[in-house]
């Protein structure tokens, strides 16, 4: 399992290629990046902040849960923190599995849960102001 937080730019290919076990044939990767427009409003840049030790623990829990729920072999989750420009990658989730179906399902489940439970926050900065984005509450 790879779970990391970093202020450095993420290399999606490098992360994806870290999870290539011999028994697998497919890795599904989600590359989440900074959108220029959100609801028609133009973002200048984003700032991500985390409660780092808790975020790492929650990411580990998610990987454990995904491994119980899906037939997957290896998972990497790396989330970037600090200031991100438009188009830069904020999160990479790569899942390797013997069969691709499980990799797709697990990857999609992991990003959904990460957005719900992992204590990381996003501030959107516009030309005329900034706002901390509030997620859906953890139910």
């Amino acid at each position, binding site marked *: 399992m790879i779970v990391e937080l970093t202020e450095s730019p993420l290399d999606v290919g490098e992360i994806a290629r870290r999870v290539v076990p011999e028994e697998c044939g497919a890795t599904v990767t989600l590359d989440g990046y900074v959108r220029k427009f959100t609801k028609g409003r133009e973002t200048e840049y984003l700032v991500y902040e985390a*409660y780092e030790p*808790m*975020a790492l623990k929650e990411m580990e829990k998610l990987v454990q849960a995904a491994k119980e729920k899906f037939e997957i072999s290896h998972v990497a989750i790396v989330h970037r923190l600090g200031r991100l420009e438009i188009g830069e990658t904020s*999160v990479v989730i790569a899942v390797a599995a013997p069969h691709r179906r499980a990799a797709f399902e697990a990857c999609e489940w992991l990003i959904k849960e990460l*957005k719900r439970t992992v*204590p990381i926050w*996003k501030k959107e900065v516009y030309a005329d102001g900034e706002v901390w*984005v509030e997620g859906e509450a*953890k139910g």
Partner: protein
Amino acid sequence: MTMIIKVLFFGATADEAGTAKAEIDLEDGIVAEAALTEILNRYPKLTASRERGSLLFAVNQEYVKGDELVRDGDELAVFTAVSGG
């Protein structure tokens, strides 16, 4: 008897609390929900997030339900619904 608890605020709650970090004294034997209420009393601007149902609370880096005992030296964290990804 009182005890000293470390409280962390993140994102919008840090702005609302005016600080990212505080130490507060709480009564011994208090549960998490009561500790949160006490924190809200001291940082009343956080109440809005709580009323929206967006306020989350962790003790020692774990989400809590509310009935857990808070102990001397514990690390509490208060934050709005997460928005990473």
